[in-house]
């Protein structure tokens, strides 16, 4: 087999927009797995236990550190959600031309950020 050049100078690699959406899909998925699932289960179990623990959770999410973590998880979920819908459409061959794929990846980035701001503003 022909020896192919390996080019992995990470700071110099310029990812196209769909590539950025793709790597963010991985990053957000990993973050949701590591932090999202345990925090979700903890939050649901505490919030259901009693009116007092529910109020405690409600107060707890206003803590600045909790706010940062929850906002990052909210964005992760929304980005993963929007990018996931894009991948499902690509799977059924919708928007696979270069221009359409670039446009849809820009839409994913903008919509997930906008929804994070809107939902974040509503929650806090």
């Amino acid at each position, binding site marked *: 087999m022909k020896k192919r050049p390996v080019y992995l100078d990470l700071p110099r690699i310029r990812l196209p927009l769909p590539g950025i959406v793709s790597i963010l899909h991985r990053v957000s*998925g*990993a973050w949701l*797995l590591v932090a999202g*699932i345990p925090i979700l*289960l903890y939050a649901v179990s505490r*919030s259901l*236990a009693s009116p007092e623990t529910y109020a405690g959770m409600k107060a707890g999410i206003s803590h600045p550190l909790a706010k940062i973590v929850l906002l990052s998880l909210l964005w992760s979920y929304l980005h993963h959600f929007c990018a996931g819908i894009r991948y499902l459409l690509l799977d059924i061959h919708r928007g696979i031309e270069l221009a359409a794929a670039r446009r849809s990846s820009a839409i994913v980035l903008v919509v997930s950020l906008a929804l994070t701001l809107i939902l974040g503003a509503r929650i806090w």
Partner: protein
Amino acid sequence: MVTRRYAVGAHYGLMDWLVQRLSAVVMALYTVLLLAIVLWNGGLDYALWTDLFAHDGFRLASFLFMVSLLYHAWIGARDILMDYIKPAAVRLLLETVIVVLLVAYLGWTLQILWGTP
């Protein structure tokens, strides 16, 4: 008939590929359902929250969501580990840790949904 069977690599993933997508659809539907319920009721309070989880249908839907989430997470984690962690021993160890964690989360889910408070 001789069938070549692969124990590793990317030759056995069609089922996982499909489950990854079907579980995504289940989660998306549940997300829209939950959001619709909250918006319909003009917000969330303790009474609505506990009423919701007292409902058998909602508990079952939540269970389906969590099973989808955990399986989906496993497939994604396996994909990431296959791509970035080359030493087989390290990868196996990390995969084992993740499987144990995800199964434990399933237990926690059952405890929340049907366990004694």
